[in-house]
């Protein structure tokens, strides 16, 4: 670390441009080595027939990108992943916006700060551990079944574990804090006077919600949705643990190519197709977001 230490205090002999370069060089060299070059390498890989290790000869091919035409089941898996993303995002929005409204309107001062912190705290704890915790709740004769049987002793077992709903529950649990956070930042800025004015002019609660609250909360909803949808379509650990055999997503298919099937070029191509989807989502919604911000 002797080189960066010497760079910070800027001896007079160095030109300002050199100092700037020395300050940013270590961080960006590291990012290049560990993020950008690997992405480039994966792009190259995705066009190879086989992984070029040992004395195997790899040739150029676009087969891996045409895989959706050759293997219809992958289309099904991709659609299922998108559906998983849509369900998770939708449920997070349906719970997150009201929760953010409740937090910003029903509480004040220290209490509100504390509750806000409690809402976002889980989000900094290990996601794997939180997904694991749901297995104990959802499995046959788990806590959920126990709880139901307190009220209705003869209740049949739900046995939700290893099903699509189990995956959605786990993902909603994992990403809900994002939505509450982004919605909260939008709705906390709404002036009480605006709502009072609407009410005093005769607007009923639903009208106030649709005409005032929802448009003003939209940037938060959109930001939250993007932040949730993107990682959900790339999730593999939640579907594996909570979905079992039912949990085949594009994420688990990609993981398989790298850890089980060892078809790295195919895995790379699938990763890049997913990356393309992610970039399109960011491009579309960044415009929508900016459009909203300038319109208001």
């Amino acid at each position, binding site marked *: 670390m002797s080189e*960066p230490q010497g760079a910070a*205090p800027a001896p007079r002999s160095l030109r300002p441009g050199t100092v700037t370069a020395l300050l940013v060089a*270590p961080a960006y060299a590291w990012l290049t080595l560990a993020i950008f070059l690997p992405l480039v390498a994966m792009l190259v890989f995705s066009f190879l027939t086989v992984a070029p290790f040992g004395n195997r000869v790899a040739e150029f091919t676009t087969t891996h990108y045409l895989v959706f035409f050759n293997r219809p089941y992958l289309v099904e898996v991709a659609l299922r992943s998108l559906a998983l993303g849509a369900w998770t995002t939708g449920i997070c929005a349906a719970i997150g916006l009201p929760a953010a409204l409740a937090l910003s309107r029903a509480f004040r001062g220290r209490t509100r700060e504390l509750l806000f912190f409690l809402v976002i705290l*889980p989000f*900094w704890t*290990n996601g794997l551990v939180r997904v694991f915790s749901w297995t104990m709740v959802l499995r046959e004769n788990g806590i959920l079944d126990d709880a139901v049987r307190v009220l209705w002793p003869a209740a049949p077992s739900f046995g939700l574990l290893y099903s699509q709903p189990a995956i959605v529950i786990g993902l909603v649990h994992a990403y809900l804090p994002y939505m509450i956070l982004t919605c909260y930042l939008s709705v906390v800025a709404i002036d009480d006077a605006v709502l009072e004015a609407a009410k005093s002019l005769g607007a009923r609660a639903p009208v106030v919600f649709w005409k005032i609250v929802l448009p003003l909360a939209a940037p938060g909803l959109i930001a939250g949705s993007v932040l949730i949808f993107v990682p959900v379509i*790339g999730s593999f650990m939640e579907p594996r643990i909570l979905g079992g055999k039912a949990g085949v997503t594009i994420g688990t298919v990609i993981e398989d190519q790298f850890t089980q099937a060892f078809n790295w070029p195919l895995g790379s191509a699938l990763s890049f197709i997913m990356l393309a989807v992610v970039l399109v989502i*960011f491009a579309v919604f960044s415009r929508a977001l900016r459009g909203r911000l300038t319109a208001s």
Partner: protein
Amino acid sequence: MTALGKAFLFAVLVFLYLPVAVLVAMAFNASPLYALPFEFTLHWFEALSGNAKLIAATRNSILIALLTTVIATTIGSLAAVALSRRRFRGRTLLQLLLLPPIAIPWLIIGTAMLVFFFWTGIGRGLHAMVLGHVALAIPYVVLVVGAGLNAQRIDLEEAAMSLGSTPRHAFFAVTLPLLMPSLVAAALFAFAVSLDQFVVSYFLATPGVSTLPVEIYTSIRKGFTPEVNAVSSLLLGASMVLIVVFARLSGMGGVGGRR
């Protein structure tokens, strides 16, 4: 309306915390099949101390997190100083380049690292995980330290210089002490990012060298026992403590709650 809102938020908090509470409770429950009624025991925590694999993984996790913290905080802070205090061509581009490590799903980043590191001979293992974790932590360090620098009044540094201090002295005597809370917050953040990182570690681990989250994942896939609950509870506790300290230092608990 207010009462309804309070009840709803309470329900959301129950949803967020109940499974985690169950996980921790089951770490103290005697039944190996998670059966009720609850019977208190420390047996599963004692069993941990005899589990050489988990202990080795924990040691790796802490070592990687410490190295990540030191490296990412150092080089990230240097970049933050340049990005927030200097005007130069390409500055916006450099700021934009911080987004991919945060925004691209870890699955893609992790597999890309696996491909590249394997191809170039860097290989997998501890050093590869440190390489990866530092890269994931750098953007957060730059953002946290950058926010700290931007919140500081630049005229303090200028005042020191107009009173005869050299730029070097002004930086070390004025800017750096004021920046200390941000630096500590960034370091804690980097530590937490590394300690909780699973996906990237998973692809860079070797059968002999893994981290705590990777070991937990492997145990879950094999069939879970309360021992996994015990070790998960410890990890959970560690990251919660880190974040509470982080929040106090950076004032995060008060985001938007101010005024």
